């Protein structure tokens, strides 16, 4: 490479790197939009019965935490005003004002939930100093038969000398494993639960709270949503309220769920709404109102794009006016694929010019990789093989008819299209995979591939043909692997200037006049020779 080439390479890389650095460090835009995996739109709808009096209706709303990040909130009080109050038992919204008609007031929040594993600190039981701690240790007033039932259980599972650490585990295992979930009825009395060994999540949580506190472990009941399919009440996304617990160990609240057997772990399905409330009535403190909570999963990509667009607009930089993110969403999805194609070319260039792998056609492996990405690798691979196999068989039959070349090719092309149609129809019936878009299937290329494959077999024999075939498939597979790196896609889509770096790579490979790896094999006779 001459100096001028190095200079061009340097300039290209410099442009790309400095643009990215400028956007990230000086304009302060995120390097790539954060990918939120588990995003939900939660709606807390309060249905209000008409009343002439002015009133206040409180309801629980999700609280920001290390597990829950609130993205966006909206509300519609139909004339009533909203205040939000942070209490030790959760964040509460409050509608206040008069409502003389039957109306539904909405509070909507978009949030992302992450799973979390909690590390258990050494169990140090606090002295019941503060009022709060005392509260979390105070056992609610129970009926004598409840106490009797609990003592019976304690007698069975807890030996007198057991440590609090063991005790809490034993209680957890007992309630999780021995008490079955039955949400068809309410379980007001603990003795009832102990007798039937059945309870709903509230019953389990209450029993756990009582038993933990009796062992001197601060504990509280948590209410909220567990966003699991079986907790869903209707198609609109209404979920039943679920309950679990938190125990305080070493000053930290550690979640415990006896319904699904999670100890010191919450999956990304748990959305807590309120703490330390044991009966449903107090959740919504108005007799003439009812609360309906719905949650629906959001298509995450779209959501973060909205967020990122906001970020772009905030910079007020002309540079950001040209972001691909400002294109309509459906156009963006096309460009997300297109922008990766040059990366396929990088693989191709390296394999062909530096390693020396033979391929069919120049860009067929890249197109094949795109198709694999669309359909999934295994399916795409077999589908492609099936089409090529069938096409090849057809070519074999057509050869006997001795048709002119273009009509001959056109028949194979038509057959490839027909095979796609037939497959699409069967796919609808059999549901082999959900959405089949043949758009990215390289129809014309496949046709030419079939023809070249056939000709090459005749002219150059099986060995050379297989070498090219295997080369094409290896490159397609590696390219597919690269296409599947979601972060790469995000980086390139956010910073299309990375393509300048690719051009620099192409220049460098383009100026490479050294040997190909395959030439070590080809010229191995020279390697044996004396230098």
């Amino acid at each position, binding site marked *: 490479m001459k100096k001028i080439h190095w200079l061009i390479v340097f300039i290209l890389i410099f442009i790309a790197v400095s643009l990215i650095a400028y956007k990230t460090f000086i304009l302060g835009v995120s390097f790539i939009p954060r990918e939120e995996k588990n995003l939900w739109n939660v709606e807390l709808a309060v249905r209000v019965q008409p009343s002439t009096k002015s009133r206040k209706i409180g309801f629980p709303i999700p609280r920001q935490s290390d597990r829950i990040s609130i993205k966006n909130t909206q509300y519609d009080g139909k004339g009533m005003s909203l205040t939000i109050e942070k209490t030790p038992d959760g964040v509460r919204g409050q509608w206040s004002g008069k409502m003389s008609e039957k109306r539904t007031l909405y509070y909507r929040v978009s949030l992302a939930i992450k799973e979390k594993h909690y590390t258990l600190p050494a169990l140090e039981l606090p002295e019941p100093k503060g009022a709060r701690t005392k509260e979390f240790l105070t056992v609610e007033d129970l009926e004598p038969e409840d106490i009797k039932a609990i003592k019976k259980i304690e007698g069975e599972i807890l030996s007198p000398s057991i440590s609090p650490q063991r005790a809490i585990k034993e209680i957890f295992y007992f309630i999780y494993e021995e008490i079955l979930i039955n949400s068809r009825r309410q379980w007001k009395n603990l003795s009832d639960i102990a007798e039937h060994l059945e309870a709903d999540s509230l019953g389990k949580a209450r029993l756990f709270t009582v038993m933990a506190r009796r062992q001197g472990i601060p504990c509280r009941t948590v209410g909220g949503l567990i966003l699991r399919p079986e907790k869903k009440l209707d198609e609109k996304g209404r979920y039943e309220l679920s309950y679990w617990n938190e125990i305080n160990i070493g000053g930290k609240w550690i979640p415990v769920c006896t319904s699904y057997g999670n100890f010191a772990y919450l999956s990304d399905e748990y959305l807590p709404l309120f703490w330390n409330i044991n009966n449903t009535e107090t959740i919504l403190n108005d007799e003439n109102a009812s609360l309906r909570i719905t949650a629906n999963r959001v298509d995450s990509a779209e959501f973060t794009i909205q967020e990122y667009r906001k970020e772009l607009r905030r910079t007020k930089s002309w540079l950001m006016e040209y972001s691909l993110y400002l294109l309509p969403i459906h156009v963006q999805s096309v460009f997300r694929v297109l922008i990766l194609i040059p990366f396929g070319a990088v693989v191709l260039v390296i394999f062909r010019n530096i390693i020396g792998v033979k391929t069919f056609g120049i860009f067929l492996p890249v197109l094949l990789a795109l198709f694999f990405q669309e359909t999934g690798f295994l399916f795409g691979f077999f589908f492609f093989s099936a089409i090529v196999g069938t096409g090849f068989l057809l070519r074999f039959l057509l050869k006997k008819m001795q048709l*002119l070349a273009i009509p001959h090719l056109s028949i194979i092309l038509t057959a490839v299209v027909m095979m796609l149609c037939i497959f699409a129809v069967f796919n609808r019936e059999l549901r082999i995979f959900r959405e089949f878009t043949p758009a990215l299937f390289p129809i014309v290329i496949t046709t030419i591939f079939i023809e070249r494959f056939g000709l090459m077999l005749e002219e150059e024999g099986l060995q050379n043909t297989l070498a090219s075939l295997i080369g094409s498939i290896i490159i397609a597979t590696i390219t597919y692997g690269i296409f599947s790196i979601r972060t790469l896609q995000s980086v390139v889509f956010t910073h299309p200037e990375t393509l300048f770096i690719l051009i620099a790579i192409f220049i460098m490979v383009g100026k490479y006049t050294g040997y190909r790896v395959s030439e070590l094999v080809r010229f191995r006779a020279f390697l044996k020779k004396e230098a």
Partner: protein
Amino acid sequence: MFTKLSQLGVLGMNARIGSYMLPHNKRADYPSVDDKVITAERAEALGIPVPENYAILETFGSLKKLPDILAKYSAFVIKPARGAMGNGIMVITEHSGSVFTRADGRKENIEAIRYHISYILSGFYSINGYSDKAIVQYKIQTHRALEPVAFGGVPDVRVIVHKGFPVMAMMRLPTKKSAGRANLHQGGIGVGIDMLTGTATQGVDGTRSIRMHPDTGKNLGGIRIPEWQKILHLSVMGYELSGLGYLGADIVLDDEKGPLMLELNARPGLAIQLANMIGLRKRLSLFEKEDPAGISPEQRVQKALEIISTHQ
């Protein structure tokens, strides 16, 4: 291992393209070698002997006249004008009535030939896929001196010509595996040739060194190629013909007509190095400072042989 190849001056594919083809071969000069019809016309103008083209078929309509055209000839070759690497060549060694016998003994009828030509015309064998012309050409009669090592086809001599100087040569022999074709990647064997004397050294089959012809069992080393000086002279004329600074000239030896220029190649392969067991880059570098301007073809051949002999 790359270093070893480099020390021996082996020319790799990337260097062939990047260091020789791209700097020395102007794109505009390619058609004169890629299209064999143009090559033949130019050769005739320069007085270079070539195999006679009996007919050039350019349209599907002309296929109607095919039986009349072929009736006159008992042996002929059909090839694409813009073919590459020996693809699409059909050799008919015998023709009686409606039966055409191919070099490998297969019998064909006129329909099969028509079909083959239609493929050529559609551009299937064409170097860039565009539509093509088909050439019906004189079938070379293998020279009697090479008969013992020619199996079912015609041997030819490939000379690498750099800036008009002959640099390296090999003889390409057809084998059973190559079905009468002399192209190495189709299974033909390459035989290294001593540039100074025109004597064969050793052979290569694929990437394997060989001493004997795999089908006839005849020794390859020591074969003297007749009319060697004339072959070299014809090869370097390829430079006058095409203007390409890096080319491969394919010369055939006809028993009657002597050396004929069969075709020129702007992208000559690298196997010639294995046939000679000499690195091509090392050879080419001897000619780095040579300038062909104002030197006649005869003088270039003499100069090249002097340079090669002093560095051997």
